[in-house]
């Protein structure tokens, strides 16, 4: 049986880390992820885990040490945000291409510049093509659950890819909310023991890792990586099903909220989904057929499933908490519209919102649904690429 508690998102993830008891955690502080290694260092120094905690001098070294540790045969984790994630950039790609199942708590924060410590998704969106699996969560509960599942997904032999557990800085990371924690023993059993096939510290089989890969083989290695990402979709669902059996909490590739008979819907990530659900409830109470889709698995992207979910809707708004700076829309919008291309004729508009911690209220979300209802009624789209809550 689980235990009802009240924790901030960062505390919850640190607790998950303690319950997993990884071999190595290497991290460098950056707001708003700092608390994760901070809580964890206390667990380590109080003897609650037997992890080697490596307090590195930068995020670049954090990811480098994670790579060294995971390659050496250790279950390894870290946490970061924004500029820290950017500073890891080079190593993110190397972790993924080396097929090292590292787990990273990515506490979403706006990427400089100008410097801003508040929430948006510009940090992890930039890492979307790095070869990491990306899970997004609305609440402390989801950040915690995803973190535990991430270990199993990452280490699955058909995947062997690193996983980012993304949740909103401050809004989720620093807000105390009610949470259902798993028993320590259940977490231990769920994640099992890490048994890599080949690793540096293996006394019975020496390996070389990180070669110079010439044109004769590089492409084949990339093709394998792409296959692993495809496999990840199946594995995520399998692991989520197992988690459901353990906890009763159901996770898919995305959450469909009141979508059964919906005519208009918004698609988004993370904490704003909760605020939007309140608006959906309000609209539903007035008889409006509004729905919502919250993407949980952004990498791999659930292309076919999204098409099936959006097909037949009269109007859809994709909300991006990061701009794409391509002159046409945000990253989630681009992925959704390309998924729909040739498969469903749905009117889709895009809102860039909440950049740098601009607060998102129920009133803001109402504006989006109002616009969708207008499109549903008239069949015409005024503007595709829009900004919500900007000072005009």
């Amino acid at each position, binding site marked *: 049986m689980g235990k009802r508690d009240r924790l901030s998102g960062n505390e919850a993830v640190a607790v998950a880390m303690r319950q997993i008891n990884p071999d190595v955690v290497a991290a460098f502080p950056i707001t708003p992820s700092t608390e994760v290694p901070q809580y964890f260092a206390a667990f380590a120094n109080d003897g609650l885990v037997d992890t080697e905690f490596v307090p590195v001098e930068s995020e*670049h070294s954090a990811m480098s*040490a994670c*790579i*060294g540790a995971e390659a050496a045969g*250790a279950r390894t984790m870290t946490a970061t945000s924004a500029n820290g994630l950017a500073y890891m950039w080079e190593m993110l790609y190397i972790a993924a291409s080396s097929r090292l199942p590292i787990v990273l708590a990515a506490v979403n924060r706006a990427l400089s510049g100008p410097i801003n410590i508040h929430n948006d998704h510009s940090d992890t969106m930039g890492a979307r093509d790095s070869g990491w699996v990306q899970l997004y969560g609305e609440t402390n509960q989801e950040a915690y659950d995803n973190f535990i599942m991430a270990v199993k997904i990452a280490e699955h032999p058909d995947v062997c890819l690193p996983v980012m557990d993304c949740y909103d800085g401050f809004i989720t990371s620093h807000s105390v909310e009610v949470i259902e924690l798993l028993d320590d023993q259940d977490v231990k059993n769920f994640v099992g023991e890490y048994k890599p096939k080949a690793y540096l*510290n293996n006394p019975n089989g020496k390996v070389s890792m990180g070669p*110079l890969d010439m044109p004769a083989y590089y492409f084949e290695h990339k093709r394998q990586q792409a296959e692993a990402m495809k496999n990840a979709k199946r594995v995520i669902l399998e692991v989520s099903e197992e988690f459901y059996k353990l906890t009763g909490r159901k996770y898919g590739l995305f959450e469909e909220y009141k979508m059964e008979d919906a005519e208009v819907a918004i698609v988004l990530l993370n904490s704003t989904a909760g605020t939007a659900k309140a608006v959906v409830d309000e609209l539903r109470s007035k008889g409006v057929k509004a729905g919502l889709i919250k993407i949980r698995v952004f990498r791999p992207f659930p292309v076919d499933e999204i098409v099936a979910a959006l097909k037949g809707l009269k109007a859809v708004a994709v909300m991006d908490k990061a701009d794409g700076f391509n002159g046409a829309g945000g990253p989630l919008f681009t992925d959704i519209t390309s998924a729909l291309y040739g498969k469903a004729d749905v009117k889709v508009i895009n809102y860039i919102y909440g950049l740098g911690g601009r607060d998102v209220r129920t009133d803001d979300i109402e504006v989006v649904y109002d616009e969708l209802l207008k499109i549903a009624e008239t069949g015409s789209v005024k503007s595709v690429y829009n900004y919500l809550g900007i000072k005009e």
Partner: protein
Amino acid sequence: MAFKLKEEALKPERLTGGHRMCAGCGAPVVVRAVLRALKAEDQAVICSATGCLEVSTFMYPYTAWNDSFIHSAFENAGATISGAEAAYKAMKKKGKLPADQTIKFIAFGGDGGTYDIGLQSLSGAMERGHDMVYVCYDNGAYMNTGIQRSSATPRFADTTTSPAGSSVPGKQQQRKDLTAIMAAHHLPYVAQTAPLGSKHGGFKDLHEKAEKAIYTEGACFLNVLAPCPRGWRYDTPKLLEMTDIAVDTCVWPLYEIVDGKLTLSYIPKEKKPVEEYLKAQGRFRHVFKKGNEWMIEEIQKEVDRTWEDLLNRNETK
């Protein structure tokens, strides 16, 4: 710890032939010598920064390493090996490795990956005190990308980014004293060494220092002169003539610092003039042009100053 070549030659070779370093390269000679200091029964995990050594010794699917080896990037050999070492400690603690299994962690980087782009990562790993050895094979320029100047390049050397031009005659700055920077990390063992010709005891100095570094607990650092025939412009057979003259002119002093105490390993009876070092290498040809005598004087002055300084700090006079 006495060095007996015959006995050392009985140990298994840890770096195979078939790697793609240039003919006559100093780096694999250094690597072989360092790894020979490992006890035959001890396992090693080796890391290399991106550089000549890495791209030449591990071109998929051919690895020249008989031990476990990892490369991840240019600037992070210190951090990468520190992660592997942390994994070792954790795995030992959790009983995932046999209790009697010893693994030694050794990182190699050129002067580019060590003095420059990798300095932060190295400094962090050393300060944290992982049980590891970091070996810089110093050939005094970014040789892998085509002989660009580094902060280890000696003053006035001709490189592709500090060319001996008609108005600016080569690199203008003194080289960085990395060994001193590492010593300032209060490491248990720091040494400067080189593979040498038999009149200097051959590989004794390098072997013994490598052995001490590997078997001293904590983070240890070796700075090893590793001539590059292409970058220095000398004929390949002369590798050890280069290192011999470097120590005889005191351009590359041999010393070790144990718990902060400095000991010179070799004091030439008669310090040779720096010209002898310079004239052996094409990268200094321009300093011998008429009118450039001042450059040799400047180099000599700097060599004298650092040598005097070392003599003053030498604790076993």
